[in-house]
């Protein structure tokens, strides 16, 4: 069974949590006891209906304020597929949490309140979807019930959105629009009776029909060594395996591989998945690889095919989102973590910083504050075995760690 990871963006006012609640409710994914708890909680809040949004706002502080602060992960499945929804906050001050939710998603759902149309927030959400190069974007124009299910209002929002796509979108991206009324479930799981002018699929029907070809298998093989397996028992005395999760591409028995950074070559002797020997690995599997030759390989090294070499980056140009209250300026040092590998880096230049509210470049701002997104140049203490994000997203991202607090302070995508 495959897994589809989705992120949703939109503030509580757009009905995002209600939409998710409805998706769960209409797929019978909410059990009776949870529903009863929701009914009781709704009553305590003085509501005369069951507020499905209370299902996802899991923290005391969120329920107090009626907003989503942190990402919540929600699960449901249909007979054909398992869904993981990252319910992400929409407010500008929680942009970092939205990026967290979106970083693992292959579908990005943006909610728009039909009465409001496109807002500053919509632009920001779409910007983040495009920044992370999420190819599948679904725009749910919600609260159609509050505009009498008027087709022209839906059309206008769709037209207005086209302007943003022209400005911020990218070629391979697919943006699909659906008019919904999440509160009553129109076009969420079941088609709406109230909007006969809409002939397209409901949200779930659309999701069910999406097919994701294993694009990563076509990319160059990238195998970071996570852990060296050296059993102590006599029986396996000569066993030396390199455990890791294939980031992209595929590898098979007998392939000529090169170890980075040493550039020593060898051949793949065997591939072990779980407790089984397999001929080949693809599609982000966790495996163990053994080599023909006894060469030096340790954690942080990367195996690539001899024919699929990689640029070793020492100067890294990237777009980052800054995720902490402290300020980033030129000259500061951090630990960069790329996959499993940590390397010391120094900020050598701060380029254009975006104002996340207006999406305009902030003039003369050469520092990053919380939630800022912008360009940066880093110098690494040793080379990074990374790809450009646009070419191979899974091997083109990193985080920055503050060495004093140990916190994750930024996420970056590699531009060159």
């Amino acid at each position: 069974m495959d897994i589809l990871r989705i992120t949703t963006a939109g503030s509580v006012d757009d009905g995002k949590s209600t939409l998710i609640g409805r998706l769960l409710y209409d797929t019978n994914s909410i059990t009776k006891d949870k529903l009863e708890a929701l009914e009781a909680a709704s009553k305590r809040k003085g509501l005369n209906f069951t507020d499905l949004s209370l299902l996802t706002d899991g923290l005391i502080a969120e329920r107090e304020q009626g907003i989503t602060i942190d990402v919540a992960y929600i699960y449901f499945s249909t007979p054909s597929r398992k869904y993981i929804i990252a319910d992400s906050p929409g407010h500008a001050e929680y942009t970092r949490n939205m990026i967290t939710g979106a970083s693992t998603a292959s579908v990005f759902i943006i909610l728009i309140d039909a009465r409001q149309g496109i807002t500053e927030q919509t632009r920001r959400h779409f910007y983040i979807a495009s920044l992370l190069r999420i190819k599948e974007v679904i725009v749910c124009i919600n609260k159609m019930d509050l505009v009498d299910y008027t087709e022209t209002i839906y059309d206008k929002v769709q037209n207005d959105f086209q302007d943003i796509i022209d400005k911020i979108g990218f070629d391979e991206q697919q943006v699909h629009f659906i008019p919904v009324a999440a509160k009553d479930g129109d076009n969420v799981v079941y088609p709406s009776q109230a909007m006969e002018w809409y002939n397209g699929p409901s949200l779930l029907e659309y999701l069910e029909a999406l097919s994701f070809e294993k694009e990563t298998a076509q990319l160059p093989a990238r195998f970071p060594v996570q852990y060296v397996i050296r059993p102590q028992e006599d029986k396996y005395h000569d066993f030396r395996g390199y455990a890791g999760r294939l980031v992209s591409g595929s590898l098979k028995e007998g392939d000529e591989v090169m170890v980075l950074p040493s550039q020593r070559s060898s051949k793949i002797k065997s591939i072990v998945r779980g407790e089984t020997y397999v001929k080949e690995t693809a599609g982000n599997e966790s495996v163990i690889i053994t080599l023909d030759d006894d060469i030096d390989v340790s954690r942080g090294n990367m195996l690539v095919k001899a024919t699929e070499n990689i640029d070793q980056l020492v100067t890294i140009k990237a777009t980052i989102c800054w995720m902490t209250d402290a300020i980033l300026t030129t000259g500061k040092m951090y630990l960069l973590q790329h996959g499993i590998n940590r390397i010391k880096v120094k900020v050598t230049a701060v380029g254009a910083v975006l104002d996340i509210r207006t999406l305009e470049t902030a003039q003369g701002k050469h520092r990053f504050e919380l939630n800022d997104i912008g360009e940066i140049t880093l110098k690494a203490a040793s080379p990074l075995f990374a790809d450009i994000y646009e070419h191979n997203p899974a091997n083109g991202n990193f985080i920055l760690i503050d060495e004093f607090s140990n916190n994750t302070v930024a996420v970056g995508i590699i531009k060159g």
Partner: protein
Amino acid sequence: MSRDKIFPEELEHEAIYILREVAAQFERPAILFSGGKDSISLVRLAQKAFYPSRIPFPLLHIDTGHNFPETIEFRDWLVKETGAELIVRYVQDTIDDGKVQEETGKYASRNILQTVTLLDAIEEFKFDACIGGARRDEEKARAKERIFSVRDEFGQWNVKKQRPELFNILNGKINPGEHVRVFPISNWTELDVWNYIREEELDIPSIYFAHQRKIIERDGLYWPHSDYLNISADEIPFTETVRFRTVGDMTCTAAVLSQADKIDNIIDEILAATISERGARIDDKRSEAAMEKRKKEGYF
């Protein structure tokens, strides 16, 4: 629907990746082992992650003294079978040391007390990573949990200051005294766990299967009758065919009426269930935020 290969393999690859990161990033990790299906799955994943080596971390069991005897029996069998190292620490010792007080009244349980025993054990062995079988689908506070979740010196979870967790990157860097709780099966649902147990043909404690048991009815739930449960005169024990959907203490885990005696029947039952797994956990019912509050204090 064919049930041959339902379990999403991607979840196993993800969990193995996480377990290997624990082994690489930390000096003294341990698996928090309860004897329940989730921690049994974790042990299996750890076997696969490090094959053909042995599991490189010990199993830590916090024994409340109120466990089902079948769970303890199973635990000891599994340890023998896998060759894993087992460490047991007892809530009774924590009580005897005067660090916590036994609850009283008809809802008395040792569920909250065990947090203190756990934190003491973490300090005693200087564990820097504790691997748990908690899942995000279980409960709404757990839905917010990171895969690597940092705890301060007091074992506390600071929900407002969680580290952002991006892509597949796991940042396990901590300061002395802190530790990380690691949840490799965060993205699994109850059904995923059962399908995994089924497809891996894992053994599980007998109380998961239908059996005859003495129970009492209280607050609409069936409580297992035991020496540890305080019952009143009008709560009269009777015998029924039941099973347990989740395994906690005998004082806070309710039974369900069931005839399911095979994994396939259990899966059918879960598919048709109208009550959630934790609906049978009396410890969650104390308030809407019962889990969040316990987690902030360092609970599992």
